[in-house]
C-alpha cells in the first residue's frame, strides 16, 4: 500500500506545515514516508504545495502522478490539481473560501468550512488544523493523538495557548465529518 497526498494553497496558509506534520505523524505510526515540498522563489501570497507519500513498502518516487488524496485551501489550487487526482480519490477543500466545485464526478468531495470553524473557536489561523482533523478522520492514516503530538513536535511551540487552540481545531474538524 502506498498513498500519496498533495496539500496545496497560498503561501502562508500553512500548507507545508500540514504536510510536514502529517508526514511526521505517519513516520511515528511506523510507515515509510516521503515529504516533498515544491520549492522555488516562493513568497507569501504565492502558491505553495507539497506531496506526502505514505506506505508500508519502499516508496520509489516521492512525486505523485495521480494523488489519492488532495487537500486544497484556495481556489487556484483546486483548478491546478483537480484533474491530477486518481479516479475514486478523495478531495478535501476549505469551503469557507472556495466556492467552486470540481466538475469531475469520479471522486469524493469533502467541503469543510474550515475558516469559519476556526474563527468560531477564536483563531482563524488554525483553519489548517481543522482541515487536518477532517482529513485524518476520513483517511485514518494517523491516529489523532499521534498526529497532535507530531504537530506539537514540528511546530516546536511551547506556548500553551497555541497547543490548546490546535487541539480544539483538530477535534472540530475531526467531528465535522461523520465517520
Amino acid at each position, binding site marked *: 500500500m502506498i498513498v500519496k497526498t498533495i496539500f496545496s494553497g497560498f503561501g502562508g496558509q500553512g500548507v507545508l506545515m500540514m504536510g510536514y506534520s502529517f508526514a511526521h505523524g505517519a513516520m511515528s505510526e511506523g510507515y515509510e514516508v516521503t515529504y516533498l515540498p515544491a520549492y522555488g522563489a516562493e513568497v507569501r501570497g504565492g502558491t505553495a504545495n507539497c506531496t506526502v507519500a505514505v506506505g508500508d513498502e519502499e516508496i*520509489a*518516487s516521492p512525486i505523485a*502522478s495521480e494523488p489519492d488524496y488532495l487537500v486544497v485551501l484556495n481556489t487556484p489550487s483546486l483548478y491546478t490539481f483537480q484533474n491530477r487526482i486518481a479516479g475514486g480519490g478523495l478531495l478535501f477543500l476549505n469551503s469557507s473560501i472556495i466556492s467552486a466545485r470540481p466538475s469531475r464526478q469520479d471522486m469524493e468531495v469533502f467541503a469543510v468550512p474550515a475558516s469559519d470553524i476556526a474563527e468560531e473557536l477564536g483563531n482563524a489561523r488554525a483553519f489548517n488544523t481543522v482541515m487536518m482533523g477532517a482529513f485524518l478522520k476520513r483517511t485514518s492514516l494517523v491516529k489523532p493523538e499521534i498526529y497532535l503530538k507530531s504537530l506539537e513536535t514540528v511546530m516546536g511551540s511551547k506556548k500553551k495557548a497555541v497547543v490548546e487552540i490546535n487541539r480544539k481545531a483538530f477535534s472540530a474538524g475531526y467531528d465535522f465529518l461523520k465517520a
Partner: protein
Amino acid sequence: MQGNRIIGEAAIRAGCRFYAGYPITPQNEIPEYMAENLRKVEGGVFIQSESEIAAINMVAGAASAGARAMTSSSGPGISLKQEGISSMAAQELPGVIVNMMRGGPGLGNIRPSQGDYFQATRGGGHGDYRTIVLAPGTCQELADLTMDAFDLADRYRIPVVLLADGMIGQMMEPVVFKEPKPRQYSADYVLKGAGTGKAKTIKGLILDPLDMEEHNWKLDRKYRVIAAKETRCEIFNTDEADIVVVAYGTAARVAKGAIKRLGDHGIKAGLFRPISLWPFPTEELRRLAGTRKEFFVFEMSTGQMLEDVRLALQGYADIAFHGRPGGVVPTPVELANVIVRQYRRDR
C-alpha cells in the same frame, strides 16, 4: 529529516570539523545546519566565505592541516570551485564537495537537474585527474554516502564529490545514522607547523615535465585502483526483465515508480542504478548485457551518463534514451508512457 540537513548531520558525525561555503539555492540548508551545529562540537569551524573559490581553498587549507573538511554548493558555485578541486587533486588532499544540482547551463534555474554529470565525472577542472563521485538516491543514502565520502577521501587522498540535486536536498524522509567508522588515514602529509619534525611541502606546481609526468602516472595508478575497487550500484528486478532502465539519483526514483506501473502494460522492467558515477560500474552493467538486450537510459539532462552506458555496453545491446533537462522532474506515469511507446515501437 530534510535531505540537506542530513548531509550536515552525517558530516559532523563522520568527524567533519571544517566547513566553508557560500550560499546558493537549493543547498542553503547545508551551510545553515553547519553554522548552527558545527560550533557545538570540539574543534568545529564554520565559515561563510566571501566566495566559492575562497571556500574550496579554505577546505584545501584545512585538509593540509589534517582536518576532515567539506564545502557545498550548486551548479554555478561548483564551476567556480573547479580551480581549487584541480589543485586538491594535484596535491592529493582529501575533502568532500557536495553539489546539489540545479538547472543549467549558466545561472539556469533552481529546480532539480542532472546536467553536471560530465563536470563531476570527468574531473571538472583542468588537468589529468578524476574525483570519486557518489550519487545518492534516497535521504538514507545521503546519510550513508556522506560518511563514506569522508572515508574514501582519506583512504585515497582524493577529493570526493557527492552529486545529488535540489529535489533530494529539499525533501524529507526518515533516516537512521550509522555508526561512523574510526578515521583511518596516513597522516604523513599533514602540515603541523614549524618545529614538529621534517619540513614538508604540499604543492601542485611541478615545472619539470618529466617530474609532472611521473606525478600524473602516480595519480593514474591510484585512479586505476579506485576504478577496480570502488564501484557501487543497485540492481533491481532485472532477473525477468524485458527492458532494463539505467538511471541514477532522483531520476532513478522516478524510474522505479515507472517500473512498478509497467507491469500493468504487461512489460517486465528492471533498474540498473549506478551509485558511484566515477568510477562507473562498467563491469556490472556489461555483465547484465550478457543476458538482457534492451536498455533504456533516463536522465534529467540531454544525455550525459548515456555516454558511459554506451562505453560499457559497446554495441552488445540496444540503448534507448529519454531526457528531461533544465530543471524538469517528470512524473513516473509520464516516464512509464515513454517506455511503453519505445518498447512497442521496437516490436
